[in-house]
Structures are given as structure tokens and as C-alpha cells.
């Protein structure tokens, strides 16, 4: 199997706040990330698709197609957005790197028809990333 990885960047704001906790608890648990006005990151997303190269095209999948899927499913939805308020799937969740990576997996997996989504790696900053493998193993 060959793995193909495409990288995109999007910038978005978020805030960590659980309405089930008191204001004081939210501040204690989430610290700076609880700032009511939110804060943002330049997220870097690496999407990996695994499969066999098609003998006619030599490609696992058409990268142009993958680019369009990422544009439609991720960039249009998340780039320059406030994730808590503008991405309905995250409305009832804390938009941590873990939860955003899971959502990205759920959005992309059914759209990739050639090859199979094998990993979503989401960098929140240069010193933190989350890998999502769906229900499979790496």
C-alpha cells in the first residue's frame, strides 16, 4: 500500500467552556483557553490516504480531487471561523484538537472514494498535534 499525504492550513478561533461547570471551574480546568472572547490558531492539517497506485494513472487518487474535497469539507467550513459558533457539529463539544480531528475524520472518510483515509493529523501549534485513525490502527 502507498500512502499519499496532502497538507492544508486554516486559521480559526475557539474557546474551551463547558456549561456544566461553574465559571470558576471552567477557568481552573481550561485556563487561558477559557477566555470568553476566544483565541485562535493557524491549524495545519495533514490528510493521508492509503491505497494501491492505479496501473493506468500511476496514482492512488487524483490529488486535484482530494484538494477539492478538502476545500469543500474543511476550508469552507472552518477557515476564518469561530469553531464553537460557526461549526454546528462542534456546538455541543469542546473544540479541542482531539474533537476537531475526530470531526475532520468523520467529514472526510465517506468522501474519499479512491483509496482509504488512513490518518488525519491536526497540528494546533508547532508543539502539539493529534492523530486520528478512525476505528482502525495506525
Amino acid at each position: 500500500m502507498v500512502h499519499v499525504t496532502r497538507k492544508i492550513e486554516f486559521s480559526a478561533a475557539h474557546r474551551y467552556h463547558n456549561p456544566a461547570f461553574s465559571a470558576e471551574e471552567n477557568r481552573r480546568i481550561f485556563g487561558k483557553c477559557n477566555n470568553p472572547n476566544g483565541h485562535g490558531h493557524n491549524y495545519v492539517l495533514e490528510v493521508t490516504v492509503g491505497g494501491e497506485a492505479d496501473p493506468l494513472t500511476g496514482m492512488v487518487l487524483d490529488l486535484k480531487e482530494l484538494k477539492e474535497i478538502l476545500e469543500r469539507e474543511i476550508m469552507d467550513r472552518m477557515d476564518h471561523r469561530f469553531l464553537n459558533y460557526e461549526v454546528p457539529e462542534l456546538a455541543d463539544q469542546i473544540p479541542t484538537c482531539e474533537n476537531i480531528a475526530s470531526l475532520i475524520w468523520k467529514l472526510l472518510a465517506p468522501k474519499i472514494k479512491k483509496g482509504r483515509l488512513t490518518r488525519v493529523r491536526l497540528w494546533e501549534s508547532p508543539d502539539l498535534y493529534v492523530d486520528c485513525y478512525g476505528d482502525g490502527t495506525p
Partner: protein
Amino acid sequence: MRLELTRRYALAASHRLHSPHFDEAENERIYGKCNNPYGHGHNYIVEVTVTGKVDPSTGMIAHLDDLDGYVAREIIEPFDHMYLNKDVEAFRDRVPTTENVCVEIFERLRRFPGARLVRIRLEETGRNSFEYAGRRDGGKDD
């Protein structure tokens, strides 16, 4: 969903590669520049990968403050700005190659209570990196 969280930490330390199993000439032949008696240093990057269930109330596998605190105590404080051969007990009789440092870091972090340690990836320079994910049977290395 299977998720892994990776955090990167920087630490600067010096070491010297020299094995008591070899004579001077052999040490120099095997380790080359790294055998310099005065030691030399690197800006290491430690990548710590953990896994576990995401707590729905926080959205997190592990609270980063807990992980950062644990790594600071177990790794950064004892290793950063140290001469590994002399300042870290574990390397008094073990050559502090990046392979051995990587395994030592894994063993020191495996008891992190907040999540399950998956692997350590240690960059010695921008060009060399080493990974260790523990023994297959989950036991401690000899």
C-alpha cells in the same frame, strides 16, 4: 475513534559517546567526533505520544498541564542543560546514544497517570531521529 496526542518539548544537553567495552583507539574509530573527551551537545526535541479515551467534559485525552508538568519533572528538569554522562545516573554506565536516551525517556514517562504512553520520538538534530514504543510484551527493557 482512535486518537493519539503528541506534544513536542525542547531540551539542550551534552554527551560523549564512549564505551568501557572498547579501548581508546576502538572508541575513537567507532564513535568518531562523538568520542571527544570533553563531550558535545545537541538541541534535542522530545515528541511524547499518548492515547486514551477523550473525556467528553473536557474534550481531552489528557490535560496538557498534567502532561507538561509530568514531562518537566521527569525529563526536562533532570536532563535540560546537563551533561548526560555525568549528571544523569542512568548514563554513568550506559552510553548516552540517542537510542539509549530515547528508551530512558520512555521508561521514565510510561507511568504517566493521565493517559497511556504510546511512543517517544527523539530528534537529536534536524536530520536524526529515533523512536521507541516499548517492548511488545509491555515489559520493561533489560
